[in-house]
């Protein structure tokens, strides 16, 4: 029985190792913002592949392999040269080599096909990839490349780390950044070229990009990123290969990439701290708090305009002090009511009895919140016009933002620095921490 599963070993092992190598090398190009260099190399190998094929005239892998490696490296080095000698940026240089080499490759490919020597299937395989066709020899090559990459990273970890993050410092302590970066480039080109056979030119770069990008969502530490990225690459390789066995005719390459993409999507949505879901929830919480604070401040100001009279405050007066839409004010009042910050009352408009004008009354809790927000706002206005010497009519917008951010500790410090002031630059009263609820006036 076990014998019938033998044909699985090569594709599975090959995909797993490719994923691992891609994840490992990808970590280095991610931090150097060269993620798409893999894409460039994967496309730029084409002329090398065709020439290697034409030169060898048969479908042995070595000619294609050598040709691909030479062309890929040449393209990678040329991008560096273009970037250093012209005003063009990295991405443009990559695009030039990607488009240019690929076009030349297709021209050569057509010439070979026109010559009618047939059997360009080896080249097609290089373009679209076929993990199921991996042979024992291919797996040995892949294993060697993976092992070399892993060994290099383990042995020279510190050097590679410094060179990747701070090339100037590396040069200063006597390590040649150019030499080490060329070495990384060489390994990168190797990783791309060996993955071509399994996943093809368009999808090979994905092995280098998606696992490290996923890892970067989950950790900020570089060693952890490398380990995680390699593990994710391995996982995607195995997963994609197994999935492709569930139905005949399913290509392995796209499934490996889609496994990787699924990992990325999961991390993108629910990663601790950086996940989009948490961001949305946090954002909603902040927005609701700001809406509440704006509302309670408007109520305070409307009441202040009426000299803190005992009567309920008409909602129309609050509306004048509120800077948002009617809908926002309504929602803010609803939330304040739910929290018990205010009670709704109606009072008859003076001349005719109906319709009653809606109005509201601040509770003691509401008063505390209101005076806290207003205190922050006015303290900050005062602080800006004192400490930063900004004109009093320019400080309002800034204070509108900061009133939601300051915490109690900062308020205490501001109070102390400004000698416990009682009036803001506009001459208005600053509510103190212990200011009591305005007493009903006779």
């Amino acid at each position, binding site marked *: 029985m076990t014998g019938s599963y033998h044909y699985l070993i090569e594709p599975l092992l090959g995909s797993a190792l490719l994923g691992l190598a891609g994840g490992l090398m990808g970590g280095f190009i*991610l931090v150097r*913002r*060269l*993620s*798409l260099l*893999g*894409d460039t190399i994967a496309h730029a190998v084409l002329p090398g592949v065709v*020439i290697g094929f*034409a030169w060898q005239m048969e479908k042995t892998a070595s000619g294609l392999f050598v040709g691909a490696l030479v062309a890929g490296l040449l393209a990678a080095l040329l991008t560096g040269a*273009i970037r250093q*000698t*012209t*005003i*063009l*940026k990295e*991405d*443009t240089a*990559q*695009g*030039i080599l*990607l*488009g*240019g*080499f*690929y*076009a*030349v490759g*297709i*021209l050569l490919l*057509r*010439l*070979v096909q*026109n*010559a009618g020597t047939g059997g360009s299937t080896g080249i097609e395989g290089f373009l*679209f990839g076929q993990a199921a066709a991996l042979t024992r020899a291919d797996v040995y090559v892949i294993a060697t490349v993976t092992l070399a990459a892993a060994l290099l990273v383990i042995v020279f970890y510190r050097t590679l780390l410094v060179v990747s993050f701070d090339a100037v410092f590396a040069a200063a302590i006597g390590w040649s950044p150019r030499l080490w970066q060329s070495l990384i480039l060489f390994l990168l080109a190797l990783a791309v070229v060996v993955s071509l056979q399994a996943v093809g030119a*368009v*999808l090979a*770069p*994905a092995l280098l*990009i*998606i696992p*490290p*990008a996923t890892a*970067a*969502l989950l950790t900020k530490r570089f060693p952890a990123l490398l380990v995680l990225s390699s593990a994710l690459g391995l996982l995607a390789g195995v997963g994609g290969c197994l999935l492709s066995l569930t*139905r005949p*005719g*399913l*290509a392995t*390459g*796209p*499934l490996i990439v*889609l496994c*990787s*993409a699924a990992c*990325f999507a999961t991390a*993108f949505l629910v990663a601790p701290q*950086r996940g*989009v879901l948490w*961001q949305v929830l946090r954002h909603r919480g902040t927005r609701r708090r700001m809406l509440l604070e704006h509302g309670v401040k408007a109520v305070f100001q409307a009441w202040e305009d009426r000299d803190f009279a005992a009567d309920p405050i008409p909602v129309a007066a609050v509306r004048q002090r509120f800077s948002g839409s009617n809908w926002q004010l309504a929602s803010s009042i609803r939330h304040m009511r739910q929290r018990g910050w205010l009670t709704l009352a109606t009072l008859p408009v003076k001349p005719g009895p109906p319709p009653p004008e809606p109005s509201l009354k601040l509770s003691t809790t509401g008063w505390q919140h209101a005076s806290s927000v207003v205190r922050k706002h006015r303290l900050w206005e005062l602080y800006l016009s004192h400490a930063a010497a900004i004109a009093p009519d320019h400080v309002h917008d800034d204070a509108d933002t900061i009133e939601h951010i300051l915490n109690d500790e900062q308020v205490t410090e501001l109070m102390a620095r400004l000698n416990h002031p009682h009036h803001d630059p506009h001459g208005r009263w600053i509510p103190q921490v212990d200011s009591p609820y305005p007493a009903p006036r006779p």
Partner: protein
Amino acid sequence: MIEIPPFSWEALRTVWIEDPHGSLLILLMGFFVTGACALVGVFLILRRMALIGDAVSHGVLPGIAIAYLIMGHRSSIGLFIGAGLAALLTVLLIEWVQRSARLKPDAAMGVVFTSMFAGGVLLISLFAGHVDLDADCVLYGEMLLTPLEPPVYLAGLYWGTVPVARMGFIFGGLCLLIVIFYRPLLVATFDPGLARTLGFRPAVIHYGVMTVLATVVVAAFESAGAILVIAMLILPGATALLLFQRLAAVLLAALVCAALATVVGYHLDIWLNTSTAAAIATVSFALFLAVWLTQLAAARLLRG
């Protein structure tokens, strides 16, 4: 073995004598595609988004596949809409991932377009294994078929065949847009902060550029193929940027490069009998290399 056919002026002349109309249409088509790509490309390069063309032209695959699955046949308009929607989706996804995950643009681009391409390939292999969704056609296009498409008559005048008229319309519209919005484009490209204070809304301009890019990529796809689009979005603009500094001069120079590459590339293809799109892109690449290496040599000579 790679065999290069013998070169003869006779062959070139024969093509022009036998079918001047067809040759002219192919040249026009080539120029409209490369010219439109070159103009958009200049802005992409200046905005450091040179590779977004590559990303978009790969990202359209699932759109094409889904349109095909829904329509059941290769109808031009369905594929156009599917590809257009997928292109816009690619751009929006890239932005979303980049902003929300705080990834660098290159990584965000790589994640999105490879995933979308993989999805497209999977869709095709799952549901349309027997379809003639010709990968060859999507990749390389077939410009030589341009003269064989149905002709367009409008207001009693002959406007070439359908792809030429369509691409010409897009090219003309693009030129018009650039002329009208030259100043906002200029400011928003070099100094988004200043553009904002002048009231130009850089975000609107950004999405405008992306929409135009998607339109050009999708329209050029069927007849010219992805290769020509990706290459021509970058090569003429990069060559022009080596030569000039003023934006207007760069745009004109990019158009000249595109025209030159089209004419030379078409004749190169008549000689070598390969693929028109690949030949044009190759000439464009050679043009860039020539300018770049000449400048390097000149700089070295001047330094002594």
